[in-house]
């Protein structure tokens, strides 16, 4: 079974600075997706960024980028130029590409606070 681990429960960053959120996962599969979801206080989860395991290039979405290390099974999220609206809980998630199984497996999440 796949597992996703987010070992840091909380992080804090100064507005306009850069922060990196860590995630590791365990799987025996070679083809899968990794995601970062943001859950603001309104509690609706929003997809931040997605990485396909077969792609060597790290995904980037505006101020958000990932460092995907497949051999190390590490998938960190970097937020550049942090804004107050980035304050939220962030979940790392895994999804297989094998068969019709499409469920997401989530980590415990990390609470990010942004200091003005």
């Amino acid at each position, binding site marked *: 079974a796949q597992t996703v681990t987010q070992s840091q429960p909380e992080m804090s960053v100064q507005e306009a600075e850069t922060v990196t959120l860590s995630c590791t996962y365990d799987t025996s599969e070679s083809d899968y*997706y990794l*995601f970062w*979801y943001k859950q603001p206080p*309104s*509690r*609706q*989860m*929003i*997809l931040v960024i*997605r990485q*396909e395991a077969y792609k060597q290039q790290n995904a980037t979405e505006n101020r958000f980028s990932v460092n995907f290390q497949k051999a190390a099974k590490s998938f960190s999220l970097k937020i550049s130029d942090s804004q107050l609206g980035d304050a939220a809980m962030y*979940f790392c998630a895994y999804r297989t*590409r094998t068969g*019709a*199984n*499409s*469920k*997401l*497996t*989530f*980590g*415990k*999440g990390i609470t990010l606070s942004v200091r003005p």
Partner: protein
Amino acid sequence: EPEVTQTPSHQVTQMGQEVILRCVPISNHLYFYWYRQILGQKVEFLVSFYNNEISEKSEIFDDQFSVERPDGSNFTLKIRSTKLEDSAMYFCASSLGPDPYEQYFGPGTRLTVT
């Protein structure tokens, strides 16, 4: 932009009562999901649903749970006899398909069992 909606936003019920949580997925989506998040814990998969059948379910999704798509727009989760440990945030999600399509989440229903 189309959104997944869920009602009610908060439901309080007594232990042993039946509850139905409602979701309206994005209209052209074909795959539907329920997840739950007990306060302070990770989001957990409950069930996926496609073509009027359960595609996959987790160990959490026991005989007390059922899902239904009663019409062309709603997707419901029923808990027959609620327990205190069912208190959680329940999220509905929908997607066009399994791969490579992403899942879009609703705002959640907070269920409190007293």
